[in-house]
């Protein structure tokens, strides 16, 4: 499958934090041809390994999280409207008149209604609406809603992926399915090489709730090296300079205390040597990625963070440049080969 199609395929799978089963199933299918084993753990992580065949081989962990932001139904109002809480961080201004998909079987469509302006003052209309005052409208009576939608039902934004211009793609859940797709493509690329170390894929859960899946996943794998693959912010007209990376300028290689200096350096060297487009992302403290918890797993893991620049992160219209994703695939596949050579 082409990278673009693979990303759209994965982004279309509804799997908010804690409800990753559907993503687990789809990723297992897609990853199976390129790995020796696939398994899971109590947190629902997908752990796969491609072995090099050497005894006591070193382990490289590639991580991307499969969960996406979403919502969870907390109350059925007497009018039939559904009150909800967020799963992960969502800008409340993104919610009014928003279409969602409730993850019942079969899924139920809903719309987050908004109070019309006619009954509001112009001042009210300049203010964002507190998410606690918003409801999902599933077009159901309270009685019917209670039958069909148990409390604790999760929901995700509705909408399909779309190509933007020549190189860009737009979809919900690019954070972090784009990097899940990247890992599948890395494993595909590695399948035609003989490896010098075991390559583990940790397709982790609950990152959006605080990097929870990666904690147990990294512990179980006990890797020597890790690369956390996630999205980072790309520049938009309303973002400040210095807060963002450039879209279309290649893989963002993290530099800072969360990253092992030698490993980041190796990535930069590889990029230079192989002419892979990259940019340095300086990250001063908590990177907000699974790299943060992987680095301090067990006795410590040599960790690198490679990111895909994405605009409008945590919105239903996340946007990325496919060329940046291609650069990451090349870069990290080369790293896996290089680390293997060194053994």
């Amino acid at each position, binding site marked *: 499958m082409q990278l673009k199609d693979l990303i759209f395929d994965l982004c279309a799978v509804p799997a908010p934090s804690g409800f990753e089963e559907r993503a687990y199933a789809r990723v297992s299918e897609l990853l199976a041809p390129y790995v020796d084993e696939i398994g899971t753990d109590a947190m629902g992580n997908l752990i796969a390994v491609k072995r090099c065949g050497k005894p006591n081989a070193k382990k490289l962990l590639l991580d991307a999280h499969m969960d996406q932001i979403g919502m969870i139904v907390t109350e059925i109002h*007497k*009018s039939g*409207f559904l009150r909800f809480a967020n799963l992960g*961080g969502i*800008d409340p*201004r*993104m919610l*009014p*008149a*928003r*279409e969602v998909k409730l993850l019942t079987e079969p899924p*139920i*469509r*809903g*719309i987050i*209604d*908004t*109070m*019309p*302006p*006619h*009954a509001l003052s112009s001042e009210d*209309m*300049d*203010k*964002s*609406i507190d998410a606690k*005052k918003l409801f999902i*409208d*599933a*077009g*159901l*009576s309270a009685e*019917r809603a209670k039958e069909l939608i148990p409390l604790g039902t999760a929901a995700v934004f509705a*909408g399909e992926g*779309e*190509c*933007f*211009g020549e*190189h*860009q793609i*737009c979809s919900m859940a690019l954070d972090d399915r784009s990097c899940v797709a990247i890992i599948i493509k890395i494993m595909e690329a590695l399948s035609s090489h003989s490896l010098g170390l075991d390559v583990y894929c940790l397709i982790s859960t609950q990152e959006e709730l605080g990097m929870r899946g990666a904690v147990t996943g990294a512990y179980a794998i006990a890797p020597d090296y890790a690369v956390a693959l996630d999205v980072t*912010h790309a520049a*938009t*007209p*309303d*973002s*400040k300079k210095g*807060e*963002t990376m450039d879209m*279309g300028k290649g893989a963002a290689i993290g530099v800072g205390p969360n990253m092992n200096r030698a490993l980041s350096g190796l990535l930069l060297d590889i990029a230079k040597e192989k002419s892979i487009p990259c940019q340095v992302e300086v990250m001063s403290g908590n990177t*907000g990625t699974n790299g943060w918890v992987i680095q301090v797993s067990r006795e410590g893991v040599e960790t690198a963070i490679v990111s895909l620049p*994405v*605009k*409008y*992160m*945590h*919105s239903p*219209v996340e*946007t990325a440049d496919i060329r940046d994703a291609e650069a990451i695939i090349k870069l990290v596949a080369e790293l896996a080969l290089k680390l293997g050579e060194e053994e």
Partner: protein
Amino acid sequence: MLETLKTLCYLSGPSGYEDEVRDYILERVMPHADEVMTDSMGNLIVTKKGRVAPTKKIMLCAHMDEVGIIITGIDDDGYLRFDFLGGVDRRVVIGKRVYIGKNRIPGVIGIKAYHLVDKEEEKNVPKREEMYVDIGAASKDEAEGLVPLGDYGVFDDSVYEFGEGFIKAKALDDRVGCAAMIKLLESELPCDCTFAFTVQEEIGTRGAKVVANRICPEVAIVLEGTTAADLPDVPEGKTICKLGEGIVIPFMDRGTLYSRRLYSQVTELADMNNIKWQTKHMIAGGTDASVIQRSGIGVDTIALSAPLRNIHSPASIAKISDFEVMPELARLLIETVLKD
């Protein structure tokens, strides 16, 4: 009528750019019309003979235009700046998809990632001047090659039924009225009628003004969508009207004090024929009726409206049972006017 409505909602027709909608309607009504004309503003006027010639000239009216955006500028880095066509609530456009122009170039109304938003920023909705459309163009040149200034944009056009008899679409205001008029045109009418599919309602009922001057009707029936605020936590007096409570027959809105004679006639007709109806519980909104009523020497005017949640947004909602009765109730009213 439901299938016609769905097709109509897919079409792009923001104020001043109603061509796609007009072309479709024209094609649909041509076989049933006795006369059609398009005026200089783009209004489509269709006349159809009925069983008899009426004593009073009757006009039905629905507007073809929807709210949307118009491209006003292109940034150096390829982002489009825009203004709204019609009254769009800024709160509902953030992070929404739009399609620009005839070629439907996809774009989004962007907003920086939530991670980069501070507590103060989060409380306010960005001003329209701060908003932008991202079409994935890397430069001004690339964007200019795709989108000319003055081009229009419409919201995401997915249309579907959901829940217990609801439909979601953009542009339900007022494709619902257009669909009802098409249905009437496809049937035998009690008497000769003129149907005005108007333009530019959303920017100040401008199409209807010239249509009324041309047709000089004596009775006008405006078929519309109207705002419903029947949400949880909204006090009873502020809901305006409710989905599922039937077609809305207003006695007054901000533009019009409707004909009291027609109001009592049509509400009686609804009762006699077991058509569920409600009136507006708040003086809000306005329709083409305002300019039609005060055109020429004055016109007896009434409106029949479908209650809509999230009106003027990409995700308007109607209850099918509320608007399905619109053509029938209009027909009953025409018959009554004939007898007067």
